[in-house]
């Protein structure tokens, strides 16, 4: 586990309190995007989006890089970890479920064989 300082935690909480910013993180989970593209996507002004990105950047959730005249945003380390953790929890649920399914199906198989198929 990576430890975060209280200040970082506070920054994250603030950053994630906003639906647009959470949306931006989800979007970046699909792939990097320019601030212009994000502004477009979330129907807001470039200035508005820049503000949001600034907050996310401060929290370590997003990093940005200037490529030519465009500023590209990507998930920061913390954002990546959250996305991975979310998927992993979901996967565990299904893995547990399927393990139980195996037991039921094995039983059906046995019955099937007993019935001389």
């Amino acid at each position, binding site marked *: 586990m990576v430890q975060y300082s209280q200040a970082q935690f506070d920054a*994250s*909480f*603030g950053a*994630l*309190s906003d*639906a647009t910013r*959470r*949306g931006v993180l*989800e*979007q970046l*989970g*699909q792939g990097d995007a320019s601030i212009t593209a994000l502004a477009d996507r979330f129907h807001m002004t470039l200035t508005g989006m820049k503000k949001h990105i600034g907050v996310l950047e401060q929290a370590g959730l997003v990093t940005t890089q200037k490529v030519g005249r465009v500023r590209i945003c990507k998930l920061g380390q913390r954002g990546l970890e*959250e*996305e991975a*953790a*979310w*998927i992993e*929890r*979901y*996967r565990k*649920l*299904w*893995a*547990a*479920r*399927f*393990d*139980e*399914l*195996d*037991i*039921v*199906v*094995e039983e*059906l*198989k046995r019955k*099937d064989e007993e019935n001389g198929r």
Partner: protein
Amino acid sequence: MDVRKESKAGPTKNRTEVERKSERELVVTRTVNAPARLVFEAWTQADLFRRWWVPKSYGLTLLSCEMDVRVGGQYRLVFRHEGSTMEFFGTYLEVTPHSRLVWTNEEGEDGETGNTVTTVTFDEIEGKTRLVVHDLYPSKEAIDSGSTGALPEALDQLDELLASLGSGTETR
């Protein structure tokens, strides 16, 4: 000491894979070591389904499980969780024996965005069945908030996650 009971299926569990396919789609894949006919049975007979759908390790009680598995038929699952009950229900849109099941998840319906639709395909290859569970959420927000489609355990986990991400922000 770990003495494994070896079954014919082999001691190792098949791998469950999850992919966030798009902002509105989650896909789970898993192989089951049995013909599609039997796997399909376990998905469509309530007395079998209820035995595996809620993993024992999740501490939920399935109070009732009704499934009318035919096109237009309804299903309803009632759970008890920490003193309250939760219901999950919907309609079967497609029922193709041994190969395909499609149902809606209506408990989270809000009238505007529609329901999450779950499609399960059963693909038999050399006596084994490749299962693909595809959830199409009505919106990106639904997938993120867990308001529809997901199961109670998944909801809890989502809530936990959201809490860990954003708790306390309202009062700041």
